[in-house]
């Protein structure tokens, strides 16, 4: 039996990379927009913002992990919009009639999203360090860096797969905007990216506690040595982040495996 998963998944992943490089607008959308947000929030809040229970000395530092998560989120959104475009332009139908497992289609997309997210996050962190906007008191050790990288990859896989579940079933980019604005953006805003859970009102704290992004961001903060008090413990953050990625990928495979009964 021929390999129906990893060679096709590799090929689909490779295609994601090539397309990203050939579509300059995606670099602008998924990297520059979060960086702009970071500069606006960081400079805008300036000294007037003292995050409750956070060790960060400046708002630039507080918003840094959240900006990385925003890069992850935007990359996932673009990756999913391309599913809708592939369906409309006809490319996807060729993949669907090929002897390719549905896991391959999901993994090509999800690993593509994760790779792009981590490369852009590294670029962003590199710029932040070079401009002395972050880690002025020293960077994370090797273990911390690995934990942060794992958080990024898992969170990115989870969010891309979650977007996939919706993008697979809609036939227009407009319809996906609803998913983006009502689900994905709030997931980011209520993850501790903008404000810590410690000082928030109870309903918001509950929403933050059931939001998987909260745990991904907490894991990332822990890896970067920037824990916020009132957040989940490092072990819980890691466990939930792994669980979210596994569940979301499974859901995406199930959605993609369902054969249609109508056109």
């Amino acid at each position, binding site marked *: 039996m*021929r390999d129906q998963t990893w*060679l*096709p998944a590799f090929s689909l992943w490779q295609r994601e990379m090539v397309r990203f490089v050939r*579509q300059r607008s995606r670099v602008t959308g998924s990297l520059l927009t979060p960086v702009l947000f970071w500069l606006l929030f960081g400079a805008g809040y300036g000294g007037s913002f003292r995050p409750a229970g956070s060790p960060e000395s400046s708002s630039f530092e507080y918003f840094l992990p959240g900006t990385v998560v925003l890069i992850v989120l935007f990359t996932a959104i673009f990756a999913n919009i391309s599913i809708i475009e592939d369906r409309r332009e*006809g490319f*996807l*139908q060729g993949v669907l*009639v090929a*002897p390719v497992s549905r896991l391959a289609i999901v993994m090509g997309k999800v690993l593509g999203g994760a790779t792009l997210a981590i490369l852009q996050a590294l670029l962003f962190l590199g710029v932040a360090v070079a401009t002395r906007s972050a880690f002025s008191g020293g960077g994370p050790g090797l273990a911390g860096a690995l934990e942060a990288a794992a958080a990024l990859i898992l969170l990115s896989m989870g969010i891309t797969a979650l977007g996939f579940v919706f993008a697979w079933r809609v036939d227009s980019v407009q319809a996906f905007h609803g998913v983006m604005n009502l689900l994905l953006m709030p997931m980011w805003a209520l993850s501790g990216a903008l404000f810590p859970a410690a000082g928030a009102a109870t309903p918001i704290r509950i929403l933050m506690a059931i939001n998987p992004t909260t745990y991904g961001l907490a894991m990332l903060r822990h890896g970067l040595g920037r824990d916020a008090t009132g957040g989940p413990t490092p072990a819980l953050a890691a466990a939930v982040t792994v669980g979210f990625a596994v569940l979301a990928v499974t859901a995406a495979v199930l959605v993609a495996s369902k054969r249609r009964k109508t056109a």
Partner: protein
Amino acid sequence: MNAVLETRGLGHDYGSRKALDDVSLTLAAGEIVALLGPNGGGKSTLFRILSTVMDASRGEATIAGHDVRRAPADVRQALGVTFQAPSLDRKLTVRENLIHQGHLYGLRGPDLAKRVQVMLEAFGLTDRAGDYVETLSGGLARRADVAKSVLHRPRLLLLDEPSTGLDPAARRDLLRLLQRTRDESGTTCFLATHLFEEAEVCDRVAILDRGRLVALGSPTALVREVGGEVVKLTSDDPEALAAAIRERFAMEALVADGEVRMEREDGATLLTPLLAAFPERILSATVARPGLADVFFRRAGRAFEEGSDA
């Protein structure tokens, strides 16, 4: 067993609408068969079922001996599909598209590279191999699309209205490529079309109307069945003219698609008395050898164009 495609009692409903009804047909290795029918006749439904993206409501279909419902992975390996809209990635080059396609079918390395090269040459795409698909003309993109569909040497190639948007020269070019692919690899081609001239040059024609298979045979055999000649008259009032002809000449005269239509052995000799009898009411008269349009009319009981209700 030589059958590459076999369907038995295949049917499909969209809600209460029967899109496909009791379709049974067999395609042998190396045949080029047209699936002819008006838009909305069930061609796309049949193709969706055969290409494993949709389950049929009733009946069975096997491709290269594999059941489309129970063994979709084996069916997909034996099947190539060319869709109405090319399924190429426009941001990739022609060669990149072919290599990607090879990976999807489990091909890799030097074997794949060689096969891609052979395919590029066979389809006359060597010069454009490094160009982005978005820079190709419609005809060239279609060629690249077909090359992609047959790269893994499928037993059966399904083509859903592949000549959409192509000019007549590119259309002929496409058919020649299919014939060559058939000659070299024995690939069976099943080609959905609503163009008679495209169906006429195929080995056999399957005619699908309102979901039912109304004819299956070689174009010449089907046309022979109609026989004689077809006389068509245009008139301001075709119904009245048909009635007058039936009364005066005691012969069958029907109205189809706004024209009075008669199938006669002696079509040409009939013209003079007809024109003499109704000089004011006949605007134009034609006599022609029957074609697939007449086969459709006879088998489906209506003119082809009326079916365009997709």
